[in-house]
Structure formats: C-alpha cells, structure tokens
C-alpha cells in the first residue's frame, strides 16, 4: 500500500503520505506506519523541510529498530545521510551512510544495498570526488544488474555519466547520458536529471547558452514537482551561466532566488556556492566591496563544512580582488595559496584558473617571463580538458605577455590563435580583448592604419556586446519571467484539481474504514473541517503567491534600473573610445599638414638658393657692363643704359620674390627677430599676386611710420598669408581687400577686410576650430586659421572677426609693440 500511495508529485505526496500514516495507524500496521513515516520524510526532504524530514526519518528508524526490520533501518539511515548531505554537514552524512551499510550487511538485500551505495556515490559527487563516487556506483551497478530491473539501472547510468563528467571525460559521460535518454520517459525525474547533467557538460565546454537551454527545461520540471534542493541547485547553476556571459543583472537575480530557497531550507553547500558565485559577479561588475563581503560569507560556510576546494576558490577570488585594488603582494599570496590547495585537491579546471590568474598578476607586475611560465602550464591543462573558451582566453593572455615583452612575432601568433578559437565558440569578450591587443601590436610594429581597423573591430564588438547584453538579456529575462508566471498559474490550477481528487479519495477511505453511519457522519464532519482548513490554506497560499509575483515585478524594475545604468556607462566608454579615435585621426592630419609645411620650406629654400646664383651672374654681368660702357660716347651710353636698367629691374623683382618665399617658409622657433609688418604684408601680397591680379583691388592704408615688432618673422608671414588667402578665396568674382595698419599706445592694429561672401553666425563661432572648413573636401584642411590663431597668440596678440553673410569678413589683429 505504501508503495502505491507514494507518488512523485510532491504536492500529492503531502496528502497521500499523511493519509498512509493515518490509515496504517488505524489498522495498526506498525511496519506500514514506519515506512509511511519514512516516505513522508522523503516528501519533506524534497520540499525543503530538512528538520521535519530528519524527525520523520528518526521516527522511522526507531520503528525499524523496534520491529527489527533491517531494510527500514537501512533506508532511514540512508535518508538521514541525505538530510545531512543537503545541510552541508558532511561528517554526519557519511556517518549515517556507513551506518546504513552496516545495517544492511547483516541481512543483505540487494535493492537496499544498491540504494545506499547510490546515495554514497551521489554524496561523493557533490563533494567533487568522482573517483570515490565511481567505486560506490559501480558496486550499485552490479547489485542492480543482478536484480534485472531495467528502471533501476537507468539511475545508475546517470550517476556513472556524472562521475565521468566530473573527471572531464565528456565522451564517456555523454555515452551514459544517451542511454539514460533512450530508457527514460520525458516526464520522469530521471529525465530532469539527464537535462541537468547535459547542461553541466555544455557548461564545462563553455557553451553557456546550451547549458541554459538544458537547465531551463530541468527547472520547469522541478518547479512543477517543487523539489527544493534541485530548484536551488539549478537556479545557482543558471546564475553562473549568466555570469559567465556577462549578464550580471540576471546572474544576481537567479543567484538570489537560489539563495532564498537554500537559506530557508538550510542547504549549506548551495548557500556557500551562491555566495561564492555572487562574489564573482560583484568582482566582475567591479563592485569590490560587495565581492569581499560575499567571499567572507562563502568562506565562513565552506570552513564549517570543511570544503577545501571551496576555500581555495575563495582565496582565488580574494586574490583577484586584491589585484584590482592594486595590492600586488597580497594578491600574489592569495593566488599562490589557492594554487597550492587546488593542486593538492587535484581539480584540474580549478588549477588552470589559478594558473591563469597568476599569469595575469605577473603581467600586471611587469614580470612577463614569469607570467608566460604560468600561462604555458595552464594552457596545457585546458588543452587536455578540451576547454575551448579557456584556451582562447589563455592564448589571448599569452599574446598580451609577448606584446608587453616586445616579442612581436610570438604575440601575433598567439593572438591569432585566440581569435580563431574565440570566433566559433562565440567568446565575444575574449575576442574583443584580442582585437584590442592586436591593434596594440600593429601600432607597435608601425602599421597605424591596420591598427585603426582593429580598434574599429574592438569598438564594434563592444557595441554588439552591449546591444546583446541589453536587448537579449532583457528579452530572455522577460520570457523566463512570463514562463514562470504561467507555470505558477498551472500549479495553482493543479492544486484545485488535487483538492477535488483528495475529496473523492477521502470519501472512499472513510467509506472503507468506517462501518457505521455515525462514523461516516463524524468522518464527514472531519472532512468538512479539513476541507475548510485546506481552503483557507489555499487562499492564503494564493495571496502569498500573488505577493511573490508583486515582489518579482519590483525586482524586475530594479534589474531594469541596473541595466539602464550599465547602459549609460557603456555608452560613455564608447563615446570616450570614439573621441580617442577622432583625436588620433586629427593628429594624423595635423602631422601630414606640418610635414607638408616643412617640406615646402626645404623646397623653397633650395629653389631660392639655386635661382639666386644665376641671378648673381646676371646682376654681376650687368654691373660689369655698366663699367665697360663708360668708354663709349654719351649717346651710346644712354641707349645702352636703358637696357641695363631693364635687366636690373628684372633681376630685382625676381630677387624680391625669392626673398619673400624664403621668409614664408622659414622654420625657426625664435621669437626675437625684428618683424617689419608692412614688409611682411607686402611679401604675402607678392606671393598671392598671381591670384589677385585683374580680380581683386588691394587698398593699402598703412601707417606712415614703419612698424617693427619683435617675434618670429616666418610664422608671422604664415599667419598673414593665411588671412589674406582666405580673404582672396572668400571673394567669388571681383572685389576689394582693404588693409589698414596703425600704432597707438604701443598697440599695433592690423585690419584686413574683404568684400567676400562672409560667414554665418554658427560658422563664425567655429572659425578657430582645427579642421573647420567651408571649402569642399580636398580643397582645404581647415587648419589654416587655427594655425593663424595659434601664431598670433604666441606673439601675445589677439584676433577678432566680424562677418556678415553676403557682405564680407573683417579680421582685426592687435599686437603689443614690444
């Protein structure tokens, strides 16, 4: 009877086990009562009431001892082991398992023996000791194969799969899981376990979306059954999967949900794991304070449970936090300690993560060769494990080390390897970092254009990561939320059905049990009393659920706020990057421009020198001729003199142009040269004479006295040439440029006004900006006026511009005379 009454549905089990106990008591079936009590304990264990479960199992154990029923004793002891396992009190757990083994060995029953072995195996799996687990489970396998009950062997295959999965032998594990899938129905607990463990395989391989997909299905199943331990565990694992992908908001959401369950039910190990994961999330989210708090909570719990691997993990995170804080020495201490512990325990993935962190730390300490030593060891481990995500991360870090070491060939070799693995594994964050590192490499080897390409890729990927994070996570969060809400509704409906079923059942039982009408009446009264009570409880539950929904939607709003904050932060860092890129571009153009100016200077100085020499021949020759003609008669002399004058005029004009050109191109930084303003203006006009000719009238309104100020003659030439050529270019057809100079109170004023097209108000404001130009692309760099402003400023001067569109522009420059 007990077997029939006990169902998989926890909600149903609640009433059926209760009834089973009562019925057994009524018919005075002591053994039946003992078993029913044990089964009720199982129900309580699944639904998260560890204390009540413990009480029931203890009662069942006592009943077993009273009746000298070995199987009941063994079963109860075994379940007591499970209770303490879930509590995280592992010493007590193993004590009870051993007791169960001892009891069963007195009167060996292969089924109960196998149950104890299986539970011991599962216990070792929880403690990440796959080799010990394998021993137990293989023994259970033998026992169950002899029983020849196929349903029972499926359970063993699953456990065997888990052993191999923990040993990182995924192919072996998957073979067992496949057998589980073939031999189990879709609606069974074992199928949910299959989903959970397939998710673990995906997770170990770095396929986080795949893992989440499995876990979502497993979660839905356990939500339906309300197995609290499994719920807490799956929520924890899903939180980890979200964290790995950088969905920190979702990770926190799932982890806190897991924590709610595990703290209420006092699942010690799960609580510790949740705190440990939360520490990671906070660390990655750069909230070092919360990370430290979480790690301390986790450490305390692990310590109580004597979980060395967990403690080593805490040391590792502590090390990372210290590194972020810049405390290299304490970070090194934590990492070394963690590595030592992890190596002792022999968890390869954990060892690899410690090695990576040490590599990163030595890079930060600029001890690149040491870093490479650790990274080399770690990558070999990941290569044996077959962790692609890890490999790609390692190759990136190794590439970075070589980059820092200046070993460029090795750097690009490893970065290339990292990118090649990161793309198919969609390890976007690693890919992004690798692109950045490649850009750094290209910059170092003098390929700035290619580097810019990679910077662009880096920014693009940051954008997609950011978009992915906001849109995808919000969407998936909402879907999950909706699904869970629907599932809760279904759950409530099921409870309604259950109520009707229970009613029928109770009527039947009472019918059988009670012989008389009176008893029926009493039974009916009890039933109605209970019915009313249940109804009240149900109403209360509904209220509770709706409150839960309320708080969840509040939490959703909270998560949204966090997301929008993250959003803004990312946008800001994006903008910074774009600004940096713009700066690079501008500097490049500036360099090109100054390069042009410099080569123009060299060129014109060379040309001037080469032309001055032949001019010297002409002038010297004419001079000598002048002396020679003194012998001729006066008439002839006069005639020849005209020609000599013409030649001299030509030579002089050419020589003035060459002088002006060389003034303009002179490249010195001296600020102490005498600068004749009128001469400078005339030189500039001379250079522009070709474009001014026949089109623009120059009206000179120079002060009577010569204006000589100290400064850099070449630069002033450049400044005035820029203003004058701008004025010339602003005049579309015929026009005038009016130049007025004056000295008053030791202030030199120079006004240059054109009758050109003028500037709008907005453009007038931008006129001194580098790269501002109204000219079509390719015709002006927009650098001219910004350079002019700079030159005038370095001479202690001021420049002001007034302009009216269609009428012209007026530049006024003021200098102190000394």
């Amino acid at each position, binding site marked *: 009877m007990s077997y029939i009454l006990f169902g998989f549905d926890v909600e149903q089990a609640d009433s059926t086990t209760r009834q089973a106990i009562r019925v057994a008591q009524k018919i005075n079936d002591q053994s039946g009562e003992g078993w029913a009590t044990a089964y009720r304990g199982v129900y309580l264990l699944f639904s998260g009431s560890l204390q009540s479960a413990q009480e029931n199992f203890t009662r069942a154990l006592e009943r077993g001892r009273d009746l000298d029923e070995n199987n009941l004793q063994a079963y109860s002891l075994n379940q007591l082991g499970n209770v303490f396992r879930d509590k995280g009190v592992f010493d007590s757990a193993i004590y009870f398992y051993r007791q169960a083994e001892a009891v069963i060995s007195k009167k060996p029953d292969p089924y109960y023996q196998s149950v104890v072995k299986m539970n011991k195996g599962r216990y070792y799996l929880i403690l990440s000791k796959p080799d010990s687990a394998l021993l137990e489970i293989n023994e259970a396998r033998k026992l169950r194969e002899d029983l020849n009950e196929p349903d029972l062997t499926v359970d063993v295959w699953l456990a065997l799969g888990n052993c191999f999965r923990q040993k990182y032998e995924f192919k072996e594990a998957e073979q067992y899981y496949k057998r589980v899938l073939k031999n189990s129905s879709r609606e069974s607990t074992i199928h949910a376990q299959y989903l959970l463990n397939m998710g673990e395989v995906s997770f170990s391989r770095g396929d986080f979306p795949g893992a989440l997909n499995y876990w979502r299905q497993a979660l839905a199943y356990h939500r339906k059954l309300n197995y609290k331990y499994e719920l807490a565990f799956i929520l924890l694992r899903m939180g980890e999967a979200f964290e790995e992908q950088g969905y920190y908001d979702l990770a926190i959401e799932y982890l806190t949900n897991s924590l709610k369950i595990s703290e209420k039910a006092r699942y010690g190990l799960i609580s510790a794991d949740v705190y440990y994961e939360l520490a990671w999330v906070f660390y990655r989210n750069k909230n070092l304070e919360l990370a430290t708090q979480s790690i301390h909570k986790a450490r305390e719990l692990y310590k109580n449970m004597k979980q060395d691997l967990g403690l080593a993990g805490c040391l590792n995170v502590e090390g990372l936090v210290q590194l972020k804080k810049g405390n290299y020495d304490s970070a090194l201490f934590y990492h070394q300690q963690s590595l030592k512990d992890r190596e002792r325990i022999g968890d390869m993935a954990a060892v690899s993560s410690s090695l990576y962190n040490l590599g990163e730390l030595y890079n930060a300490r600029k001890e690149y060769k040491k870093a490479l030593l650790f990274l080399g060891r770690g990558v070999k481990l990941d290569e044996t494990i077959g962790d692609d995500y890890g490999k790609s991360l390692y190759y990136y870090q190794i590439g970075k080390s070589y980059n820092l070491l200046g070993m460029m060939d090795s750097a690009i070799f490893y970065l290339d390897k990292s990118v090649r693995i990161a793309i198919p594994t969609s390890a976007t964050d690693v890919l992004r970092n690798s692109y950045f590192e490649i850009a750094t490499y290209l910059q170092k080897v003098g390929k700035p254009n290619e580097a810019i390409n990679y910077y662009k890729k880096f920014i693009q990927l940051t954008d997609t990561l950011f978009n992915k994070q906001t849109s995808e996570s919000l969407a998936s969060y909402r879907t999950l939320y909706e699904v869970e809400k629907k599932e809760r509704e279904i759950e409530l409906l099921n409870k309604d059905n259950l109520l009707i079923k229970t009613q029928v059942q109770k009527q039947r039982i009472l019918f059988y049990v009670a012989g008389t009408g009176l008893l029926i009446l009493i039974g009916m009264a009890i039933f109605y009393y209970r019915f009313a009570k249940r109804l009240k409880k149900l109403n209360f539950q509904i209220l509770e659920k709706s409150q839960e929904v309320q708080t969840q939607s509040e939490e959703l709003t909270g998560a949204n706020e966090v997301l929008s904050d993250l959003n803004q932060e990312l946008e800001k860092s994006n903008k910074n990057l774009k600004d940096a890129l713009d700066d690079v571009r501008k500097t490049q153009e500036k360099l090109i421009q100054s390069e042009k100016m410099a080569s123009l200077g060299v060129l014109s*100085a060379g040309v*001037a*020198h*080469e032309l*001055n*020499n032949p*001019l*010297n*021949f*002409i*002038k*010297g*020759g004419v*001079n*000598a001729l002048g*002396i020679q003609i003194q012998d001729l008669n006066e008439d002839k002399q006069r005639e020849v003199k005209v020609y000599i004058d013409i030649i001299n005029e030509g*030579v002089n004009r050419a*020589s003035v142009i*060459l*002088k002006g050109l*060389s*003034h303009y191109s*002179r490249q*010195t930084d*001296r600020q102490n040269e005498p600068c004749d303003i009128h001469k400078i203006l005339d030189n500039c006009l001379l250079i522009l004479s070709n474009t001014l000719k026949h089109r623009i009238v120059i009206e000179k309104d120079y002060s009577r006295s010569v204006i000589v100020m100290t400064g850099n003659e070449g630069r002033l030439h450049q400044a005035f040439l820029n203003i004058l050529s701008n004025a010339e270019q602003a005049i579309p057809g015929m026009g005038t440029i009016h130049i007025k100079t004056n000295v008053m109170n030791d202030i030199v004023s120079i006004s240059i006004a054109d009758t050109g097209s003028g500037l709008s108000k907005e453009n007038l404001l931008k006129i001194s900006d580098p790269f501002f130009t109204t000219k079509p692309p390719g015709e002006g760099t927009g650098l001219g006026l910004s350079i002019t402003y700079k030159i005038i400023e370095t001479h202690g001067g001021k420049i002001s511009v007034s302009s009216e569109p269609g009428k012209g522009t007026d530049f006024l420059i003021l200098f102190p005379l000394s």
Partner: protein
Amino acid sequence: MNKKITILYVDDEDINLFLFERSLSSTYKVLTAKSGEEGLRILGESSDEIVMVITDMRMPGMDGLLFIRKAKEKFHNISYYVLTAFNFNEEINTAIEDKLINNFFTKPFDIETIKAEIGRVASKLNLIG
C-alpha cells in the same frame, strides 16, 4: 682709388669670382680663391695686406663657415663676411650671434652695399682719410 685695401673673395664658381673681381678691382685690390683651402694658403702669404675676407657658404670640401673658423684661428684681425645665395637661415644667424662673421651679403650682390661695408672696415683701420 684706394689700392691699399686688399680683399680676399672665396667662391667655387669661376663666374662669381670673375664678376666680383671685375666689379671691385677698379677700387680695391681683390684676391680670389676657388676653395677654402686655397683661401687659407693665400691668407698665409698675404695676411698683412688683407683687411676683409668674403666667402661663399656652400662649397665642395671645406664650406664657407668652416673656412672662416680656420682662418680666424690664425688671422683674427681680419673682418670676415659671407656672400650667399641663401636669403637668410639659421646657420647665418648663429654665425652672426657667435661673432664668427661680421655680417652677410646676399646674392645677387649689391655692389653699393658691399662697398659701403668695405668703407666702414677700412675707416676703422684708419686706412682711409
């Protein structure tokens, strides 16, 4: 007119030497050299009479400023000048500031400017008047 004043002109181009000599030989005694080395040799022979040295800047082998530097070590009473096709540059500016040369003339040269400068040097030495 005043053949007491002797000038040494150094330039690597024959035409320049020819024209300079023709332009000034009616007034002064003009010695010419085709290189810095030759200039130093002539100075060694006639340093007593030479009051002014004018040299081109850009010459193969020893350039003008190096020639002046070497000449000045031995014959520091003479005034040194540069006559160059460069209009003005940093090198000349430094040479003036370091008092290596008194001044510079540019090509194409203006006879009157050079004559005025020779006059100034000569009057300092009381060679005129």
